[in-house]
């Protein structure tokens, strides 16, 4: 046999093997609805213990970093992370008992005590997530020898696309991938090894302070959540509320942050999959950072610090230093910042109250609850159409109340509610909208 026929046989064999592998990868798409798979993934931490070795690859300051961590989870919200690599991280220990988090650095013998990091998912999270992402089932794949449902979450407005590999038998997310449309994959994580149903001991999630360790208490934020109006009563500087945000982002909570002499207001907005934070502090209490590159916001000087996965935009207005942090495109941060810098709060209150035929006081009150102007207009219009009170309507608009629950309360069919909602969205047309926010 000459060499050429051997090569042809090998190539043909390879094609057959690859085709077989392809067929296996493209296994019949599961009949389980993607929403049900997502729900399984979100509920899994409440019902199962696991421990495994996870490999993370994350964009960090224009470079990628690969991190290996031994991750243990005890239901419902205890967590232990022991970092194995790279060298600079090796030995770092994070122990979260569900109430407080301890972070220990053995090379420095330093321990940091802070708030819990392993938060529990609430029903509202799923509601907001499902409103703002298109879910699709991509099939079933093998991950470390286990069958996993593959689902994709595509943001309805622009943003980060996620893909999850959800263990078919436990619901634990075995692999994740986050893809930024402009930068490609910004974070991927997968278990290289995992064990389930271990009934891990409580003691494993209790931190024991090593002898001689220096302890730093890092509770920089007051517990609980406050509205912008409540925060305004606590600070001596004006609290700025974003007038417009990308579609789907809604107020998630506010807090007062204190570190040394620096007092800042922290406002959080989320679309269920991504978070944008705004920090506001008197300009006199914080200078410009040395890091980052100079940019302009609303014609004024600003600074953009691209940390990779996270982007930070800093600008100054009305004697305040405002900092926005998020995993959104730079242009989104700059557009949102430009809307805040424009400082048309009073003019917009008058404009929106005229458009939705409401009194300015109501609009101002809803703004004080952290709603964007579009959410204010939609809440008022929907409240009028449904005959519901404003607090209930605001809960629905923010995702604290599902469409099913509201329809049930009103004795309406869900499709009828959907039509009414669409009508209310039409009524709110013309209000500063996220069309300008990419």
């Amino acid at each position, binding site marked *: 046999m000459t060499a050429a026929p051997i090569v042809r046989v090998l190539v043909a064999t390879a094609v057959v093997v690859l085709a077989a592998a392809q067929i296996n990868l493209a296994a019949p798409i599961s009949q389980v609805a993607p929403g049900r798979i997502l729900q399984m993934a979100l509920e899994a931490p409440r019902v199962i213990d696991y421990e495994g070795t996870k490999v993370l690859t994350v964009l960090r300051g224009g470079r990628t970093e690969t991190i290996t961590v031994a991750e243990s989870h005890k239901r419902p919200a205890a967590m232990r992370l022991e970092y194995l690599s790279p060298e600079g991280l090796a030995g770092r220990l994070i122990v979260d008992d569900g109430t407080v988090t301890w972070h220990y650095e053995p090379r420095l013998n330093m321990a940091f005590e802070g708030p819990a990091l392993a938060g529990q998912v609430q029903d509202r999270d799923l509601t907001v997530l499902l409103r703002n992402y298109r879910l699709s089932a991509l099939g079933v794949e093998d991950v470390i020898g286990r069958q996993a449902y593959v689902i994709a979450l595509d943001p309805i407005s622009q943003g980060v696309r996620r893909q999850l590999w959800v263990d078919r038998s436990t619901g634990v997310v075995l692999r994740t991938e986050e893809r930024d449309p402009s930068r490609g994959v910004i974070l991927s994580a997968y278990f290289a090894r995992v064990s389930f149903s271990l009934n891990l001991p409580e003691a494993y999630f209790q931190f024991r302070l090593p002898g001689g360790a220096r302890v730093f208490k890092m509770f*920089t934020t007051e517990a609980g959540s406050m509205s912008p109006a409540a925060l305004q009563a606590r600070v001596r500087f004006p609290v700025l509320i974003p007038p417009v945000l990308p579609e789907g982002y809604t107020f998630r909570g506010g807090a007062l942050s204190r570190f040394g002499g620096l007092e800042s207001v922290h406002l959080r907005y989320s679309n269920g999959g991504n978070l944008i934070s705004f920090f506001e502090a008197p300009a006199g209490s914080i200078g410009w950072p040395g890091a980052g590159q100079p940019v302009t916001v609303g014609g004024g000087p600003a600074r953009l610090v691209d940390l990779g996965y996270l982007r930070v935009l800093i600008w100054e207005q009305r004697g305040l230093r405002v900092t926005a942090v998020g995993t959104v495109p730079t242009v989104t941060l700059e557009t949102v910042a430009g809307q805040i810098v424009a400082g048309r709060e009073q003019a917009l209150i008058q404009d929106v109250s005229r458009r939705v035929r409401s009194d300015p006081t109501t609009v101002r009150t809803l703004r004080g609850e952290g709603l964007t102007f579009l959410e204010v207009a939609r809440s008022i219009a929907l409240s009028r159409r449904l005959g519901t009170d404003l607090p209930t309507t605001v809960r629905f608009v923010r995702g604290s109340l599902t469409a099913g629950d509201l329809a049930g309360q009103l004795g309406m069919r869900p499709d009828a509610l959907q039509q009414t909602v669409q009508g209310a969205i039409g009524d709110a047309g013309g209000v500063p909208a996220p069309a300008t926010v990419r």
Partner: protein
Amino acid sequence: MINHHRAGHLLSSYLDGELLPEEATAVQGHLLECAACRAAFERIRATKGLLGELPVAEPPVEFWSTVREPGPGRPPAARLPWPGSIPRRRVAWGAAAALAVGLVLALTPVIKGTVDRLHAAEIGVDLYVREHAFGMSIEPLADRGFLGVVVGDADLVLAGEPSRAGGSPP
């Protein structure tokens, strides 16, 4: 009258004019009668003359600090009469010191504010990124392993440790 022993002890003070008038009169009377004390008086005067020709040495700085701040158990320095006996240079130094203290007190809030501001600028991004990461921890899809890296790195910077180096070109 004054005896020989007592007069011998007062000769140096008599020479320096430090005795009370009645004591000086008594010593002077004794010197007229006592040859030994007159001889001793002349030796003391000659010695003091020689000492007066030596250059004046400035005391070390530590000396003044020990004089001005008596330690525990040490008797406080005698109060000096005011103002005639205080040299002008000391008054000038005292005024300058008071002015310096006043300036420091007046500028302390400004200096502290500037230092705080610079420090806040230095740690501001890390502080806010840390707060943001805690905010992300209640997002349903956030990866806790990644949040541990973000929070841990920020903790170290806030504690005054240098930022962690790392990452590799994509």
